């Protein structure tokens, strides 16, 4: 569910954000009112019948996208994990750990065996909502599309929307900072220098330039 196809515009009170899914990725959206989402991990398979279905190959950004696209749709109550794991990254193991244990103060997913399992872009409360809203079905390793479609049908029958509003996923904005010029450590010649820490380019003042001699 980490990458994209078409998004869906809902009717009023449909239980999901407009448009949904909010985060782009390589996934297929079939029915946003469906109760089952499927992550096929590293397997390029696309079982039918799920609200949304796609791969996830990374234990950090890929997992974040899944959480974001799930909690913005109250209809999704079941998340099926299937397909083969992405070696070393282990996103399936990481999703299970995230759902069970959450994250620590640094954003590390507790108990994950993935390489760099961190959450960095989700707002406060998103993980808790993910834990409450969906139940995980652990079929990691299974690639038989017919079997997975049967699971989708079985679990989708009794799904009821999560009794709350879609959880807003706000992209973290990077705050700009005012910086002053420090000491230039990069030269462009012609008395133009750059302070790489402040990321500022400036002309060397005359007295300093005289002291340093002509550069170009």
């Amino acid at each position: 569910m980490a990458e994209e196809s078409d998004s869906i515009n809902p009717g009023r009170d449909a239980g999901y954000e407009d448009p949904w899914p909010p985060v782009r990725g390589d996934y297929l959206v079939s029915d946003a009112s469906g109760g089952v989402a499927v992550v096929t991990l590293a397997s390029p398979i696309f079982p039918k019948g799920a609200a949304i279905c796609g791969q996830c190959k990374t234990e950090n950004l890929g997992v974040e996208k899944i959480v974001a696209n799930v909690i913005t749709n109250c209809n999704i109550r079941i998340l099926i994990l299937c397909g083969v794991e992405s070696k070393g990254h282990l996103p399936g193991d990481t999703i299970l750990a995230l759902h069970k244990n959450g994250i620590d103060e640094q954003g590390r997913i507790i108990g994950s065996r993935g390489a760099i399992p961190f959450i960095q872009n989700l707002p406060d409360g998103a993980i808790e909502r993910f834990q409450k809203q969906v139940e995980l079905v652990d079929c990691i390793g299974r690639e038989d599309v017919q079997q997975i479609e049967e699971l989708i049908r079985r679990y989708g029958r009794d799904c009821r929307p999560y009794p709350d509003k879609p959880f807003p996923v706000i992209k973290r904005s990077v705050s700009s900072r005012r910086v002053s010029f420090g000491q230039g450590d990069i030269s462009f010649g012609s008395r133009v220098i750059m302070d790489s820490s402040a990321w500022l380019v400036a002309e060397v003042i005359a007295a300093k330039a005289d002291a340093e001699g002509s550069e170009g």
Partner: protein
Amino acid sequence: MFRFSKEQSIVNVAGVKFGGQCGQLPSVLCGTIFYQGHRIIEDEERGIFDRAAAEKLVFRQAELSEETGCPAVLHLYGRSPAAFVRYLDFADGVWDGPFIIDSADPATRIAAARLVSEIGLADKAIYNSISLATDEKEAQALHDSEVDSAIILAYNPSQPGVDGSLAILETGGNVREKGLMAEAGEMGVRNLLIDPAVLPLGSGAGAALRFSVAAKARLGLPVGSGIHNAVSSWPWLQKKEMTIRKGCDAAAGAMQLLAGADFLLYGPIESAEIIFPAAALADILIAEAVRDLEKPPGEGHPLQRLV
């Protein structure tokens, strides 16, 4: 086209030099073979592949390197220790230069480091990579091996951005007790190559460009990236024609070089056809830009060879 006040160290791995001031040395270009989904592979776990097709790819990269003056590195990716046995045997037979040993699986990386030490190829090997994911077991294995060149991945998801990437290298930030550079030294790594870790486009890929300049200014070490990942992870672009995608690959590589990079992990080795000319173009432009600031580059540089 920057000129850094910090002395820029030059790393030499099996005769290929990385680093220096911008415009001083040609860019080192690392093409990946046996990557996940590579069509020349028949069995990724066992490392069974079409040897003739693989030779053709390696030879073509070498030809382009010779023609342009940009040194080449063979980037070997393996899914399993068994696969690495075959890949290294192949590489030893067809390639004299440095090679990268890489896997997403730490056990496979460890096995590869041991293997190159056993068969006497450690001096040509570059370990990819030492990162936040490196645990004690992997660190000990690298220490016990004869590998002394490694890529250090400056990925710090607990503190995204340039400051966080520098912190993970220098101090460990808030997720490791020591900086990765110090840890690499303890593992016996002497030749450090810094990689900013390129995130998907829209998730912070551009920070790699600024980081490259900042890292060279602050650390004086060779820097390079897999900027190709920003291109390949862009869903919008994947719907376009191959020529458009290749054009973006070349553009991204050239932008990374303009941002001070000394080497490119340019992705599939098949892309050598477009990356070597693009990098040579960037190298010539950069060398010309600093012509009155630096000594002219050596004879092997694209500036001397292609114009």
